């Protein structure tokens, strides 16, 4: 049963090999002339103002959380999409409940205004 996965493995190995080869080649051959001025941070030609590490406003975290929630939901849809014909109406109902729960979450979040950015 596993034989059918061998081509995928070979493809994966080739990809890893090519990536590694290119990176080591450029690491070996590339000239390294890093002067302090070259390593200075680039902020459109001027010196950066204020500390670099600072507190990120909370809006960014809210969006990150929402993304993770709905991304996982889509991940669950993929296997379902492959076999939803064999599952028949029972599978559809189960998936429907899963989708409805998340839909409630989405509507709540929309009305709460988490999507509005200002």
């Amino acid at each position, binding site marked *: 049963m596993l034989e059918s996965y061998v081509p995928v493995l070979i493809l994966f190995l080739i990809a890893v090999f090519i990536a590694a080869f290119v990176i080591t080649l450029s690491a*070996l*051959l590339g*000239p*390294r*002339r890093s002067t302090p*001025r*070259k390593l*200075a941070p*680039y902020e459109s*030609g001027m010196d950066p103002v204020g500390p670099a590490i600072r507190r990120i406003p909370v809006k960014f975290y809210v969006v990150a959380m929402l993304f993770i929630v709905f991304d996982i939901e889509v991940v669950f849809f993929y296997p379902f999409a492959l076999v939803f014909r064999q599952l028949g109406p029972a599978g559809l109902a189960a998936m429907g409940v899963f989708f409805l729960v998340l839909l409630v979450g989405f509507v709540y979040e929309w009305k709460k205004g988490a999507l509005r950015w200002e």
Partner: protein
Amino acid sequence: MGIEEKAGNLGIVTTTLETVVNWGRTNAMWPLLFGLACCAIEMMGAQASNYDLSRFGMELNRASPRQADLMIVAGRVSRKMAPVVRRLYDQMPEPKWVIAMGDCAACGGIFNNYAIVQGVDEVVPVDVYVAGCPPRPEALIDGIMMLHQKVMREKISGKKESPIRIDQPLVQVK
């Protein structure tokens, strides 16, 4: 270059590698998006549909110096802008070249006064000077092709060809 410098001159091997490397560099030289004044409009004209710079592999105008190989100083450099030009030049990765586009970048042009750096070669080492105020897009393309010939002659040994100075006999481009 890393390994070649250590390995030294292997005759036929390094020359072929040289041509390959130089060929690779000339045909995909990404300019830094660095327009200052009137020459920048002519440079935009050169990049747009009529005089298409994409034929020379300059499709992309990289905004950050980290990803650019060629700095086209298009326009007059004022005293307040000179340190910024120098900083951007330093922040570009190693195989880098500079084209001074226009009279103001080449020698201060018609503005011989307190505010303009008389020629950008006081700030960054320049490889090709393109004359004109502003130079026509064809003149800029001619400057770029001259730069390509110069890059094709570059040696692997890392000694960068010094910029052509007036008192040096002009190198005959074969």
